[in-house]
């Protein structure tokens, strides 16, 4: 009887929840969904913004302004004045560079290019990594040894240096070619990650179960194991996008990389060489620098957000 009476005490109390309380409870529950992570949102938003600049810019802005000499030289952005006393005009809202190219057109073409190189290189690297990692972890033996040693070796070689050798020997490359070359250096960390995970999953119950029920090796790898790896893969993918863009920008700043396509790194390279820092032509190097910084911050936020999704312990601190 006493038990019933306590229940009776509780029940009216729950009924007495105010509307405010219930709304708060609902909000708390909503925030418990790990994917609704503010960092993930902000990061995704930043990257989306850059992609939008690329798409909308192509529709709304005259991209022929990207050609050398299409405008006056070294014009400042609107609302500023350069050392020669020229004021910025709306014909070139972000100013022009030392060769008269419109900065806005440069950005509209250049910013998505950097993202494209990063995504493509990372995607290819990831595919190689998934294939090699699963093979090493699942097949084991001699194959595993070879893949393990190879990825250990390749992970210590900085991609920038080998690519410098490559591009200085071959000269001009296309954007896609550069992405392919970079991809040759970003497969190692996914390979190692997946191999380690596969090794630990191989002996787990559900994999044994699938094996006993006659699932093919392919099915076990890609239907049973791969879905469990997705949070790790995402994190590794984003980290590789960052590495790829850093490498691409590094090459461009050294004067290598694609010569005929405008890229943010190449714009910075030209600005430094023309002494834009001393001449206070801040828009020339500053705008590409800020855009790249926004891109990297966006990628970092996504990665931090993903970390919190897959590791609940980080959420509280």
């Amino acid at each position: 009887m006493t038990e019933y009476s306590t229940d009776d005490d509780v029940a009216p109390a729950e009924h007495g929840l105010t509307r405010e309380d219930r709304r708060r409870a609902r909000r708390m529950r909503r925030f418990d969904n790990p994917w609704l992570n503010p960092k993930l949102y902000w990061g995704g938003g930043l990257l989306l913004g850059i992609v939008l600049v690329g798409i909308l810019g192509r529709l709304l802005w005259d991209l022929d302004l990207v050609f050398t000499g299409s405008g006056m030289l070294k014009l400042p952005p609107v609302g500023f004045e350069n050392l020669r006393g020229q004021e910025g005009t709306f014909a070139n809202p972000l100013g022009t560079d030392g060769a008269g190219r419109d900065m806005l057109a440069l950005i509209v073409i250049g910013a998505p290019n950097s993202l494209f190189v990063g995504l493509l290189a990372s995607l290819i690297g990831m595919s190689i990594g998934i294939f090699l990692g699963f093979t090493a972890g699942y097949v084991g033996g001699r194959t595993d040894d070879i893949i393990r040693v190879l990825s250990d070796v390749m992970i210590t070689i900085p991609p920038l240096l080998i690519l410098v050798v490559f591009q200085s020997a071959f000269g001009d490359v296309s954007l896609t070619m550069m992405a392919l070359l970079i991809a040759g250096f970003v497969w190692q960390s996914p390979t190692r990650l997946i191999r380690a995970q596969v090794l630990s999953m191989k002996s787990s119950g559900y994999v044994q179960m699938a094996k006993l029920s006659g699932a093919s090796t392919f099915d076990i790898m890609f239907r049973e194991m791969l879905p469990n790896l997705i949070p790790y893969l995402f994190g590794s993918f984003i980290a590789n996008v960052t590495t790829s863009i850093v490498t691409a920008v590094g090459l461009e700043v050294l004067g290598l990389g694609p010569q005929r396509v405008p890229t943010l790194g190449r714009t910075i390279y030209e600005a430094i060489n023309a002494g834009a820092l001393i001449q206070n032509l801040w828009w020339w190097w500053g705008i590409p620098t800020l855009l790249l910084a926004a891109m990297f911050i966006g990628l970092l936020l996504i990665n931090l957000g993903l970390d919190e999704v897959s590791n609940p312990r980080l959420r509280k601190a």
Partner: protein
Amino acid sequence: MGRIPRSYLINRLITLFLTILIAATLIWVIPRLSPVDPADIMLGRMAAGAGSVANADQVLAQLRESFGLDQPMIVQYFKYLGNTLLFDFGLSTASFPTPVSSLIARALPWTLGLMILSVVITFVIGNALGAFMVWERSPKLVKVAIPAAMVFTSIPPILSGLLLMWIFAAQLRWFPLTGAYGLMVEPGWTWDFALSVLHHGFLPALSIVIVTFGFWALGMRGLMITVQGEDYVKLAEAKGLRPRYILYRYMIRNAILPQVTAFALKIGLLIAGQVLVERIFAYNGMGKLLYDAILDQDFPVIQGVSYVIILMTALSVFLVDLIYPFIDPRIRHEG
């Protein structure tokens, strides 16, 4: 104390050896796949300098011979490997006939100095901040300010370098714009020279530090959260030890160890980033040497610099792997 098992040592040595071999081979193979001929470029430079070159065919043949290009590929390859092991990368074509190795020897101390300085500073600052972020007793400000500063983590040092250069060198003129020491100062072991080096090195080092400390802070934060929940920390608290003592002797000491391995993975990116910082600051290190060589299409220098930088990376990773069992006796290496 951790003792390194022989199998582990052999394993690491093989990895080191293979890294060097593969890097050296790539550096050798790639230019040979290209249609560009270094002797041609050299001849072109001579022609550009002198107006015309008499007996161009003979000169070309001689140049090819001096580069060893007239021998069979396999002979060239093994000769190259042997020379590379002895740090003999041939002669620079742009500043002919200076040996590449002496150019590198002149640039290397600058790069190493800048690197060691910035790495040590970042490691200390980053790990300290990461630890204080987790510690309950650290001031509120730390917990708010550090995550905000951490946004800069992902930016490559070249971008921060440009910003710092513009603000502090071009606008405020607190620091010199380029170079590793003043033009007026005689290099030597004098106070003037040391001050000039510090003055010039400050911005390059700072641009590396502000974008890398966050990496260590983030890693440390994750490790500290794990350590915080450990039983030995609870016990230490229950014993009534001073919180500061617990932080330093119990938490940080345990959390910092995996950070050393993270260092091994990060070093390649660090070095590559620094090469670019040196290029924009025209700092007298490997980065500037590499950039000048790219401008001059000076292949022996490009190859030599790339090889030495990769060797530096591989050796640092090897050393970290070897030191690790000594600083963390919990690790026991098998096979």
